[in-house]
């Protein structure tokens, strides 16, 4: 008997992307279909382990008949839909979104964003030297990770990972409103006074480097962080018997960061404090 769960058979929907017919299983998002069709739609707040939040709006596409643009990450595909991923209208909004973000947030450690800014001819400087920025200093209040909210695009992914989607610790939330909204623990206290259990699952999903492991933060500050010199090896955690897969990021024979594969059936990309940070003992070498 083979019991690889097959689930309820899903219907296939037919619609078009950029004029080409595509088929996608019912329940797929427009983004799923675009990726399957090889369309390059930029995303920032979308996370492969999280429900779509569609807050960043960089993935907007044009859908025939829709008054406004549509976020590809969260909109479910419908039969007969006519999706245009690269129309002038969609490109314009993406360009402005990139300009708005880049003019207010430090995107220096956000992967791919520089390419997109170039591709969409975005000019973040156009808002002038006085354009309001987040102006946040890195919060270094514990030994394990750093919160640099000057790099925060408010994608909600850390809040969702800490909250009911995975960790259920609820140490952080969005506080305040509008441009003044920030990710914070209650009463904006240091992390050490909060509910935080240092699982680092927020760091795992952060798309901009606003949240980073202390090891990475310090090495970046020292100019020694070099991803091209790092290897990634997936192994199994050495602590309890749950058996979480760990991906060890190693530079110069030192473990510098630990992540977990997002498609792993045990972890779904999540770890606890021991799995995420409890590696130091193997490299206490003298």
């Amino acid at each position, binding site marked *: 008997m083979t019991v690889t769960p097959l689930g309820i058979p899903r219907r296939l929907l037919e619609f078009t992307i950029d004029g080409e017919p595509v088929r996608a299983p019912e329940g797929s998002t427009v983004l799923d279909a675009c990726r399957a069709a090889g369309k390059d739609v930029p995303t920032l707040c979308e996370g492969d382990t999280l429900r779509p939040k569609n807050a960043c709006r960089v993935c907007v596409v044009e859908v025939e008949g829709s008054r406004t643009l549509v976020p590809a990450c969260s909109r479910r595909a419908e039969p007969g839909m006519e999706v245009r991923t690269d129309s002038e209208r969609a490109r314009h909004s993406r360009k402005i979104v990139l300009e708005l973000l880049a003019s207010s947030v430090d995107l220096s450690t956000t992967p791919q964003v520089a390419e997109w800014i170039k591709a969409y001819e975005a000019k973040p400087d156009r808002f002038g030297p006085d354009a309001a920025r987040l102006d946040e200093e890195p919060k270094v209040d514990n030994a394990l990770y750093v919160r640099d909210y000057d790099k925060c695009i408010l994608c909600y992914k850390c809040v969702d990972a800490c909250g009911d989607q995975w960790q259920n610790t609820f140490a952080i939330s969005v506080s305040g409103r509008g441009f003044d909204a920030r990710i914070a623990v209650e009463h904006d206290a240091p992390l050490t006074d909060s509910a935080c259990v240092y699982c680092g699952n927020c760091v795992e999903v952060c798309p901009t480097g606003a949240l980073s492991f202390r090891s990475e933060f310090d090495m970046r500050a020292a100019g020694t962080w070099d991803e091209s010199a790092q290897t990634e090896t997936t192994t199994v955690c050495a602590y309890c018997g*749950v058996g979480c897969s760990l991906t060890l990021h190693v530079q110069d024979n030192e473990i510098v960061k630990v992540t977990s594969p997002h498609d792993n059936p045990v972890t779904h990309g999540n770890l606890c404090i021991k799995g995420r940070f409890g590696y130091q003992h193997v490299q206490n070498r003298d």
Partner: protein
Amino acid sequence: MRKRDRTPKTYTRLTHPLLRDSRNEPFRQASWEEALDRAARGLERNRGAFGMFSCARATNEMNYVAQKFARVVMGTNNVDSCNRTCHAPSVAGLSAAFGSGGGTSSYEEIEHTDVIVMWGSNARFAHPIFFQHVLRGIRNGARMYAVDPRRTSTAEWAESWLGLNVGTDIPMAHAIGREIIHAGLANEAFIERATTGFEEYKALVEPWTLSLAEKVTGVPARAIRELAHAYARAERAQLCWTLGITEHHNGTDNVRALINLSLLTGQVGRYGAGLQPLRGQNNVQGGGDMGAIPNRLPGFQDILDPDSRLKFESAWDTVIQPHYGLNLTEMFEAMEEGSLRAVYCIGENPAQSEADSEQAVRRMKQLDFLVVQDIFLTRTAELADVILPATAGWAETDGTTTNSERRVQRVRRAVTPPGEAREDIDIICELAARLGHDWKYADAETVWNELRSVSPDHYGMTYERLEEHQGIQWPCPSTDELEPTYLHGRLWEKDPAGRGMPAPFGIVQHDPPVDLTDEEYPIRLTTGRRLDSYNTGVQSGGYASPLRRGEYIELCPEDAERYGVVVGEEVQVSSRRGSVVAPVWVDTALRPGLAFMTMHFPDEVDTNQLTIEANCPIAGTAEFKASAIRIEKLPVATIVR
């Protein structure tokens, strides 16, 4: 939260073999040649009085080779590991009921169940990622019940928390069973088809009325009744337990009492319905599966079964002793008697992990020869004659480990080990060669393939497939297919032939903790884990956790007031076996007469000086969960320090 100044002990890696010519001398650095020769000689001269402590932290491959070393090179079944100190009762109990010692369900199933019972398990702290699956289940609508003396973080998620007296799990379980029977909620069809001994069980639990159970457990009858009905009426239910069940002098009986409930209601052998003992070490499941236990050969094959023995004897070209070996507990007793003279201890730290640790150290000192293979100079290593520096299984070697849901997963070498440290398998093979057995293993995969050839449950798991599926659960007899995620579906077969051995109800009696509380020792001390620390702290002490505050004796606010002590104040904590000084912490999750400590900081506060070595006669696990203690204020001068 107030933190006290601590200079926690951190361990640095062993980089060279160490040895000493007599126990009075300090260790000196040695070459591998010298150290291995010395070790081989020490073992050789104690043939017939040898015991192997294998490592529940190392790979399956290492455990396979280690047990083979014991059985083939040393000709003994005296091989065991620290699973004895935690989950051996689960293995014993599940084997007795179902013929197999693994948990019956998978993590994913708990996300799709209706009722979850967490019994003696603070998984939120001890198994955080498993608890994420529980939380998924709760978010999907499952109702969770927690049975635990403390209102733990896990219990705070429960619909209902039942705060029973330590060591009254059997009365609670029997009362639940009786209530299920009396309410007409027993699954008669399942009982009839798939179990034996129901009538005896029914008679056994009959005295355990809800009101008697309330008297014995301290939990209101209504709460017990509600749990009984919820569990029995659920279309699917999961029963999970951890060391709160097993670390008792009658741990196996506790496990049987819980299994009885699943048999009574048919909550086993179906998707989403089952039993999950949560394992405490990364490879405690695999260590046993690989035969690093005294009564089973690799693949959980019984040593007493002549066919199994024959298979291994021809595969290994050896003769296997046709009787069970000594388990860890018995090996320690044999040290005392002098019938066990040499130990090869790989990656374990019994000097700090055993209950009544002082006694354990004394016994190990009586050995003629102790070789310790580890990555750190642990307290156990300090007692050795030869210390062999090994690699860290999870980051410096290739191989596999097996998790609590029987999933075999690949571990891979990511960093180069320090100094001259060598892989466990290499070292064992070097010793085997010196003792006349020239084993050739090109790599871990070669070991694994040998294991596959002798263990049908693992046969289908090639390294390639393990990679492809991100781990495979046993049993996996075929290289083409995967089995269901749950065990014992056979019990539901219509055809009696396909059903196999029916599952017997366990006829087990309540037996309160050995270490009774009285006027002199009025407080019940129980032990457990914290979120950020692990076992004796040798590994977890290596990183800086913002949550860590060191060892405390945790009391409820009422007791703190009664003894006139405040948070941070050091007090004398004494049991009938020993005494330690520990600072006080106040935790509202406790109640009067109940205190809590961990074993994470033995270098600060050696909690196991207090615990009792009252062992489960079946599984050999000690009663870490129930000691009787008293606390005393220290004289003023001592407090100031």
